[in-house]
């Protein structure tokens, strides 16, 4: 790795102890061979990290702030403001939205399916009626045709069985 890449890592992961294993080993190898990067690391540590070691915790007054928060909470409980009630209502609606939307979509899907089913059933019935009428006509035509083909003077086909029944 070039010094530029090493210095990027020194400024971030190395100074913050985020490296381990091979990454850490290769950086330390480079540092032992490169005085320029060693100097960069020393300056970077002094300027950008060490000032924070001694940083004091800047606590504020816990009691004062709690007093203000508690007052606000109590005020909201006793007289919820219009905007707060509105916000609560909107949030409540937001929570509810999926349920009615789901119920509505199920209802709509049910209605559509029922309509499609009855529509197809009616069509089938009409087709069946039409086809049975056609069949009847066809059979009638067929029988007529067959009947018309029979010789009027002939009582049958002249087979042995027919003759037996007759």
């Amino acid at each position: 790795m070039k010094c530029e890449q090493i210095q990027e890592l020194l400024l971030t992961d190395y100074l913050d102890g985020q490296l381990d294993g091979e990454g850490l080993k290769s950086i330390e190898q480079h540092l032992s061979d490169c005085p320029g990067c060693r100097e960069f690391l020393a300056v970077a540590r002094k300027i950008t990290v060490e000032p924070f070691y001694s940083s004091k915790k800047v606590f504020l007054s816990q009691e004062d702030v709690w007093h203000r928060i508690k007052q606000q909470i109590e005020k909201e409980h006793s007289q919820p403001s219009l905007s707060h009630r509105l916000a609560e209502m909107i949030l409540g609606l937001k929570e509810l939205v999926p349920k009615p939307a789901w119920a509505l979509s199920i209802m709509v899907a049910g209605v559509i399916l029922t309509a499609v089913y009855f529509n197809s059933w009616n069509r089938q019935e009409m087709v069946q009626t039409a086809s049975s009428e056609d069949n009847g006509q066809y059979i009638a035509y067929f029988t007529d045709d067959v009947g018309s083909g029979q010789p009027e003077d002939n009582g049958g086909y002249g087979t042995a069985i027919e003759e037996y029944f007759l």
Partner: protein
Amino acid sequence: MQEISRGIIQKASEGDANAFEVIYKEYFGFVSHVARRIINSREDAEDIIQEVFINIYHSLKRFRFESSLKTWIYRITVNKAINYAKKLSRHHHQPMEYAETFIPETPSEIDHKINENFSENALTVLLDALNPDQRACIVLRSIEGLRYKEIAEVLKIPVNTVRSRIKRARETMLALRKRVVKDEM
């Protein structure tokens, strides 16, 4: 910092002020410290802390335990503080309002502040040189001691973005130092 039990969170979410006070006391230190460091104005930080806890109080009902309460509170605090700092910088056309109070006028004064045993003012000068996003990353890393992965989780940004903000922040601090040295020569 210990994790608050589910029972306490549940009670607080139902409006139990005593349970909420337990949460407040547990996290006040972190919230106040981070808000104060990112905003660096006592009064403004107090307003932000109040807003953060009121926000937590209202939002606890919707807390789904998907992340820890600690991470969730970190996120609310840092986001509020960053947004406030950004709003301030837009209004004042300067990095921060408190810059006028703390940034010294001459480079030698800056150098003096940086060198005076890394005092509180030196820290203020360094943090003030950063933009709010970089400042939040530096506060979480160098003051609060969070790892890059934890910072990424708090800010909901990729780890590489955390790394790049920290890198730019430190380059800015080094550039500030270089400017001082160059001007003195």
